[in-house]
């Protein structure tokens, strides 16, 4: 081991975004606009999955040992 290992890395703070955004109902608690007939409430929350994947991938990539 060269430098002491650490989990301190500013990139990890980015993980806050996909944790907080899905917990704000004001963003998605609506029927319109629909997508393929699916109300906003449902399709936007499914879209947050992609947000979560994108952020965790980015953080994983930027914090690799």
């Amino acid at each position, binding site marked *: *081991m060269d430098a*002491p*290992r*650490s*989990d301190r890395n500013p990139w*990890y703070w980015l*993980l*806050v*975004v*996909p*944790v907080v955004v*899905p*917990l704000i*109902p004001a963003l998605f*608690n*609506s*029927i319109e606009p*629909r997508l*393929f*007939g*699916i*109300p906003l*409430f*449902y399709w936007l*929350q*499914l879209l*947050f*999955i992609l*947000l*979560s*994947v994108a*952020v*965790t*991938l980015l*953080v*994983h990539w930027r*914090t*690799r*040992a």
Partner: protein
Amino acid sequence: MSGHITEIVVFTALFALVSGMGFVASRWRRADDLASLNEWGLGGRNFGSWITWFLVGGDLYTAYTFVAVPALLFGAGAMGFFAVPYTVIVYPLVMLILIRLWSVSHVHGLVTPADFVRARFGSPTLALLVAITGIVATMPYIALQLVGIEAVLKTMGVSGDLPLIIAFAILAAYTYQSGLRAPALIAFVKDTLIYVVILVAIIYIPARLGGWGAIFDAAQAKFDATPAPGDGILLNANNQLQYVTLALGSALALFLYPHSVTGVLASKNRDVIKRNMSALPAYSLLLGLIALLGYMAIAAGVTPIGRDVNTVVPQLFDRMFPDWFAGVAFAAVGIGALVPAAIMSIAAANLFTRNIYREYIRPDATDAQEASVSKITSLVVKVGAVLFILLIDPQFSIDLQLIGGVIILQTLPSITLGLFSRWFHRAGLIAGWVAGMSAGMVLLYNISNPAIDHAHFGGSAFPLEKLGLDTKMTVYAGFLALIVNLVFAVLGTLIARAAKVADGPDATRPDDYYADAGDPKLRDLEISGST
């Protein structure tokens, strides 16, 4: 029953196939011998990204999830969709927590979350509380997997308890023989089946029902017609707080369950865990789509068998799919129950062996003795789960699952916060556990559910007006209990320090929490766990 012959044949054939795989699994990635907990209970601690993905996914997204989440949308509407934000936020939330747990567990050879608490806070009592909490919270969870199988059997017209007992006896036998390798291998088949079934379902069923717009319109019409104020395809002002706290509380609880920890500890390095945290949300997408099956069932005019709403999804499949494919779908649910049930019983058995048997009954137990005690305990746990289902009304077991979530959350200060800080005093954590657990029970006791004739333990949404607040809002009971727990843990810690009560020794060192595979300090484990 005569109308379901094709379904039963397909179901039985697939079920037999995976049972065979379960027995063969002991030869897979073979170890020198299975007579240690590292091998039997953690698969040699050597699983790579793919296996971990299937194993943890198979473990967290259970048959019960696939049956109960759509049932919740069927009954209550938007509230049931909480499962989506819950499984979205859980991975970024726990990524940092779990890699620390992985590292410290590998340096010290820890197998269970209670092992960690024992090492960190030097308190066998606190470790015992954490172990018992884990076992108690897991039991109803295993029983609920049976509820999933039962719903499928009911839909195929198979009645009586015998088929259920046979299915579980087979499961018990191959878990006994192969340990964690069995569910890891079967998880491949399970997930493939479930992905195929769901992809077909979300394309084929909406097309038959007149499109997504028609499905949501039917759901809205149903909820508009009911007198209940809380349902609807959107949240209302009173249940938004419940939605958010339930999603957050469930996410915090998920990786406190001993079986999720088992899946994570079995992975071979930190990178596997981090990669999985970005790959596991693929299951969340699946879960979101599965949830919508509840609305499809409304649009298709499905009604539950008896009062068992868990039968709506199997019945939807029965009505929409050709017989042979309905059989495949039922097998997916049935096999989906076996994987988590196996992992959960292994995790509960590990807890008993490490934190009760070895701590209090035989401190000098050898690896081989530990493994054999775990194998026998896993059988006992499964027998307990079967009895649970046979003797208790299924509706009651679902309430126990809610209680399970509330109580497992009470180990958060010791485990999750303990991974980051040694500030808490062991006496404070014990005080917090007792206070949080009591508060949780009192809150749950005071939740009624008129829809199922339960005056108490009727759900997890606690009305704030019972605390004297002038509002109709509800909040997740586990969340309130956790706040009580934290307040008492902080106060208890301050009092214990002021009174100079002896604190337990901390066996871990700061850099243990960053260790990765390949570090010199992990060498011992790598030799004993090599294949």
